[in-house]
């Protein structure tokens, strides 16, 4: 079955429930406006079951009704994540078993960028979107260099710490600074390390396109909304799981 309708209490009834606010005082007209919106959303017939004034200028609605749309599951397209999402416990266990030492992550905002929001959201224990940052992971050693770190300094620290991965956050995008800084960074790491010893290079920020990794010379690009858990899962997959797989294949 690839063609579906929403299910209320009977197959094929197409029932949905939505709620929204209109910026207008509560009145008969407002309720009519809610029904009109629901109609345009494909809900027909629409039942405005609840309308509540919120202050003098807004009204909140709950609408139930039948949608006339069908969904075709054979035409659904999704971008699949190519690594499994792990819990912090699973990450710690995988690192402990796979690496038998802590996984070392060095993070920084490079260039003139003083916005540590991104790197802190991923690294600080405080975390982001209800997920704790990488500092929370017992088997991950985090070295957060903070803002305005020069590329040579970042390379030196990565070597000193024996970094498995380098995370760079770039928020400022004036004159494509984020792209130029990232290319400078990846070139410097390629120069400083033999190819098989180079740490994993990861860059993130609100204006990056996830498909640009190759162009920028990094291993992975994370876009807006990436959570610490996704980064941790990716690191585990790239550094622990695949390395083990390679070693297994070679043996």
């Amino acid at each position, binding site marked *: 079955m690839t063609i579906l309708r929403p299910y209320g209490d009977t197959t094929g009834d197409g029932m949905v429930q939505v*709620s*929204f*606010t209109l910026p207008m005082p509560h009145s008969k007209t407002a309720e009519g406006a809610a029904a009109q919106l629901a109609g345009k959303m494909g809900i027909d017939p629409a039942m405005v079951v609840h309308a*509540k004034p*919120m*202050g003098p200028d*807004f009204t*909140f609605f709950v609408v139930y009704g039948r949608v006339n749309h069908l969904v075709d599951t054979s035409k659904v397209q999704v971008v699949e994540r190519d690594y499994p999402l792990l819990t912090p416990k699973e990450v710690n266990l995988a690192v402990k078993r796979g690496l038998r030492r802590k996984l070392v992550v060095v993070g920084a905002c490079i260039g003139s960028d003083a*916005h*540590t*929001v991104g790197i*802190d*959201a991923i690294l*600080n*224990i*405080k975390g982001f*979107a*209800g997920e*704790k940052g990488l*500092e*929370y992971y*017992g088997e991950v050693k985090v070295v*957060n260099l*903070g*803002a305005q770190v020069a590329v040579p300094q970042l390379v030196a620290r990565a070597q000193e710490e024996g970094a498995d991965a380098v995370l760079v956050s770039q928020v400022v995008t004036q004159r494509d600074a984020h792209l130029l800084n990232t290319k400078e960074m990846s070139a410097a790491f390629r120069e400083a390390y033999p190819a098989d010893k180079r740490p994993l290079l990861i860059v993130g920020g609100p204006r990056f396109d996830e498909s640009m990794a190759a162009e920028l010379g990094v291993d992975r690009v994370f876009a807006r909304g990436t959570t610490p858990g996704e980064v941790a899962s990716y690191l585990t997959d790239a550094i622990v799981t695949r390395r083990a797989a390679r070693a297994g294949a070679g043996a």
Partner: protein
Amino acid sequence: MVSTSSTGGRGSTGGRGSTGGRGSSGGRRPRGKLDLDPVTVRKARSLARKVGRPIVDLAQQHTTVSVERATLRLGGLQGADADGIPWVNRLLDAVRGDVGIEHGIALPVWDSLVRGEADDLAVLAQKAAAGSVRFRVPEGRDLVRARSAARKQVGAGMKKVDARRRERERLVRKWGDPEQKPWIYLIVATGDIYEDIPQAQQAAREGADVIAVIRSTGQSLLDYVPEGATREGFAGTYATQENFRLMRAALDESSAELGRYVRLTNYASGLCMPEIAALAGLERLDMMLNDSMYGILFRDINPIRTFVDQRFSRQVHARAGIIINTGEDNYLTTADAVEAAHTVTTSQLLNEYFAKEAGLEDWQLGLGHAFEIDPEIPDSFRMELAHALLARELFPDAPLKWMPPTRHMTGDVFRGYLLDGFFNLAGALTGQGILLVGMMTEAVVTPWLSDRDLALQNVRYVLNAAGGLAEDFRPASDGFIAERARRVLAESIDLLEQIASDRDAAGDPPLLAAIADGTFGLMKRPADAGRGLDGVAAKAPEYFNPASEILEGER
């Protein structure tokens, strides 16, 4: 429990241990609602004092760039240069370059004013930034003159803070406090102060008693306070003096309209904690988030920097009549809320000690805790009640800050709404002082207008329906709730004992050693690392700070 006056002893801690005084008329009636043993409670407080005292000594021996900049702000220096760097930073950096900060900034600064290098602080800062003034530490008669000029000018700033406190007291008398307890605390966070204002006013109209303006992510790590009205922030709005002023004025309008005094909250945390505390005092903010260890553990700010800044900022809050909110809820967002329950109690005891040492009174201690137990665990609500009631009984005169579930909010907004209802019920049953309104869209979106409206309906329904149920809620003294509460208290005493005996190679105070080896929230934060360490200086014997002099003299 919240009152604007208090007869509680200030400055002293640990002495007041009994929680059962109200009900005990001799014989063997249960002591309070949990039958806590007063001897155990006294022991907990005396351990907190034992752990805290060396930290206070350490704080008294050091100063920081932010404490010194706060002093300049109290002296009246405002504004920023063309690059947005505040003049207090410009002036401090120049003085520090010439003579360091170990003598305090007041002597070199007012010495050059007395010498006629500039007419006022603003001009002096400009000249200093241009490199046309050399600073020195005055001696002899020059020292006496500089000291007296500094005292006069910083004293005038402190009088402004005092006037703002009296103004608050007058307005609270005029417009009144909220009718119900707990006070309803709502957050706005658009990033744009001019969007925050109508949202805050609308929230007040809908029933909020306290408005908190969340700060822009990352502000805690800035070593300067941004200047002016700001319109762009990340997930929050920058804390600036002008933003404080604008929002307080807007809430004064709302208070007049609604006939109740609507309080304003911001964050005295991060690298600029003392300066933000001073600005809060000058602009009549009413509550400030101000935890003793949050910056260390969650922002990797150097421990000594944090404790020095914290003590000064708490002294300012005490003087300004500001209620502090501590951050124990954060422990539960990183650790399991059942296993780590005692770390909350431990932190509350430490926060209480540090707060009272700094001169805060019971009514100013919004000690934090949170409803974060996994709802899948059997008896999770009973345990929440046990933990919440323990805090209530341990700190009977503090307006406890009750924080809603965040960790187990899944995106299922319907389930989240129910969980928030139970959170509200626990708050009503255990007499919490300040209730941060939970949003069913936690972890989904920043709250919509309708989310806030629904959340407030939830709070109002529960408080209204439960009414005075707290009066009837007396858990059996040998029952699950009382047992659980006593166990958490016992565990927190064990933890305090463990901290008190912690040692490190450098001979640091035990609490610093404990923080360094990961006792709290799994974070290891050594005393010689972390952000802001380079802004800490050991005080010279002739250190002078007119603000500290007034604040210490108070006590």
